[in-house]
């Protein structure tokens, strides 16, 4: 299939590419650019491990065509830690023990970051709703939700 020129901005850096029209953003990030912090699993927008930010909005990169990202800003997990300092959501995930196998974590952190940008003082129920498109099989979500609460400056419920 014919390749179409695409200038793709990822984490503030422009990449001049030529991609086939059916290529997904996920495929281009992982296979063309070697940006593998964005994970791959179901390829049907069911699990959320490929979540990235497109102009600040959380999207499933597995169902976004790369050509739809022309003149838009893509942020992956690699672009979240500005100048080497971890983003507060990343730090909270470490501090609250929210990471196990870690495969869902980049998507989870980006979904949380996008949600907190729009709602900086969410309730626990709102956080759970916001993360409901991101499956995690290790943690039972509790420490993930606590980490997001903590990053938002909210009180984390006392745990037994």
């Amino acid at each position: 299939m014919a390749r179409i020129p695409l200038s793709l901005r990822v984490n503030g850096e422009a990449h001049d590419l030529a991609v086939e029209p059916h290529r997904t953003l996920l495929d281009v990030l992982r296979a063309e650019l070697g940006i593998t912090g964005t994970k791959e699993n179901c390829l049907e927008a069911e699990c959320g491990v490929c979540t990235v930010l497109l102009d600040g909005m959380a999207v499933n990169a597995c169902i976004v065509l790369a050509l739809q990202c022309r003149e838009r800003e893509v942020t992956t997990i690699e672009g979240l830690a500005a100048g080497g300092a971890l983003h507060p959501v990343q730090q909270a995930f470490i501090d609250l023990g929210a990471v196990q196998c870690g495969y869902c974590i980049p998507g989870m952190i980006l979904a949380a970051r996008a949600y907190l940008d729009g709602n900086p003082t969410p309730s626990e129920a709102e956080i759970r709703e916001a993360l409901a498109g991101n499956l995690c099989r290790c943690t039972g979500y509790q420490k993930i939700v606590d980490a997001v609460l903590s990053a938002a400056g909210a009180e984390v419920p006392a745990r037994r």
Partner: protein
Amino acid sequence: MTATRVVGRSLPRMDAPGKVTGSAVYAADFALPGMLYGKVLRSREPHARLVRIDASRAVRLPGVRAALTAADVADVRYGGSVKDEEVFARDRVRFAGQPLAAVAATSLEAATAALAAIDVVLEPLPPVLEVAAALAPGAPLVHEGWAGYAALPILHRDGNVCNRARIVVGDVERGFEEADRIFEQRFTTPSVHQGYTEPRAAVAQWDSAGQVTVWSNTQLPFEIQNTLAEILQVPLSRVRVVVPGIGGGFGGKLRVGVEHFAALLARKTGRAVKVMTTSEEELTAAYARQPAIVELKTGVTSDGRLTAREGRLWFDTGAFAGSGPGVASVATLMLAGPYRIPNLLLEGYAVYTHKTNFGSFRAPSGPQANFAVESQMDIIADALGLDPLALRLKNIVREGEEGPTGQVLTAVGLDECLRKAADAIGWKERRPAPGRGKGIACGWWTTTGGSSGVYLKINPDGSVALNTGAAEIGTAALTGAAQVLAEDLGVDLTDVNVVSADTLSTPFDFGAQGSRTAFAVGNACRAAVADLKRQVFALAAGHLGVDESALELRGGAVVAPAAGRRATLAELARLSQASGGGLIAHGTFVAPPTAYDAKRVEGHVYPAFHSPSFHAHAVDLSVDAETGEVTIHRYVVAQDVGFAMNPTYIQGQIEGGVAQGLGQALSEEIVYDGGRVVNANLTDYKMPTAVDVPRIESILVQHPSLVGPFGAKGVGEPPNIEPPAAVANAVASATGVRITSLPITAEKIALALRERPR
């Protein structure tokens, strides 16, 4: 116990920074220059004669570099306890999803197009789809040549039964005569998938010396090495398996999955080949949990003393034995429950059908058997007018008593677990409102043995490399083991770096399975520190001019307290580098065998639970009277962990294990119709999301194991065992309706509520 500095503290896991920044590399991320993509053609028929397969048209398509069928690979049967598996169907197809061919191409699209160009003729045959059909007199044999397969000699095999494991204690008939009441129930559970978020993935590459390296997300690199050597027909030394990183396993990544396809295609093409599963392949052709049928007959006196139990559990193991014979064995120990029952006749069967080869999933056999045993305990309590907690406390095993096969139980924290879980959930008020009720369930589980070796290398800056053959599957088990190491060495956790899971260079490890990694690797670290002490004391004695007997290892240094002299590990490592090739210590651990009465077991590959753990779960939930929908208000786990190496990650195991268990309790089922899976995607296979899982409260009970490092017991699998039973008991408490099949869907509850006598 003296206070600890590192172990027992909630320190952040060592691999967390890489995982939150995206720099951690998983097998699914692994790539090599010029790599090809492999895809597998799978049967759509559950049972068929393979009349013809011809891939010659496929290999001529653009971008396609190789296509393999059974004719292109050695005619070997491989497998764990029964060697009944083959790489590709040769003349008979035994499940819908069985591999028929594999292709490698320069892109996934080209590989997918090539699959469609393979000419296959299958002649469908009547499939055996259920255990009952497989056991019926004159049933067609799934493996007509079963008797000729190599198998563990202790297995009891017969036709479609690839093992019958049995425990016999006392005389059940006499025990039933002593009983005032006898309870007989039947329970069923479906297949459920581990649901790891990273698909199974492998990249293989052969070098010019004829060695293949396979980067895979397996939990058991050394077992995969063995299996690949068998399949590829090369010496073990020609196969190297490396685990870059694993995105969850839960038992689903124990056995060869895609590694052999990658290795065979790489050999054929002379290029690196990557093979990764799709969600559809995961749900149709992976190692999901065995469906089970459980029949339990239990005798009890009117005051609630258990006198006898006859129990049978049939696992549908699918088209190949896989884990089935072992899991059927473990099931018999679980059917006894953590109870003192003087007369037992317990059987576990692994039965062939024309379905995928079901396998091990976190606490294999645990949830199925526990659902039956603990549901029946509540049925008994209700019928006798006893409190379910009191009935359990009356019958649970206690310190020094015997387990079902005669093992002597020590560090039994079950009484404390039951009481603490009940207190926390507010057991006294068991039905706080109409449609609301509380349930409790308890159980026991093993800490799997097996051996582990580690090497320690002390670097000239005093930091320590921990070299282990175990893989980190996400539990933080290797952080736990490193905490044990740092504690014994007197260094900080940040001074330790881990090198892991490379069959060429790391010491043997029995693998990340059976709740054993932190336990076994932790103990191997302790042994390695003892070896290191011998070396550094000899070195330091000369260096410091004192006698070895005057030396101690303390705070990352060898000290001679009386002489007031010390040498740091860094100094000694530099000294050793200059004089003796550097400091390397070796430590090994193998769990001591647990004594049991061999006369009580038959066909049993797992006759005793090592360093058993004990646990109780309590749940408070409401049931919507119209829709049957369950809302969980509170969920409490009290688990005897022996010693909490890192409380944060133990809570993490409990929270995650319960979430997975609640999926099995309420929503998850791989649905078959005519031998084909009808819900092979993550929308129709319903795993819990963040809105479905309640806040889980963990109570860590600590009755130290005599064997585990600092008293630790296995932690990872147990939390997955009790949720189905606890939920079933709470639903019964809330509604009076007893659901005996999993999952306990709103639909099942609503239908049962409508049929309930009013």
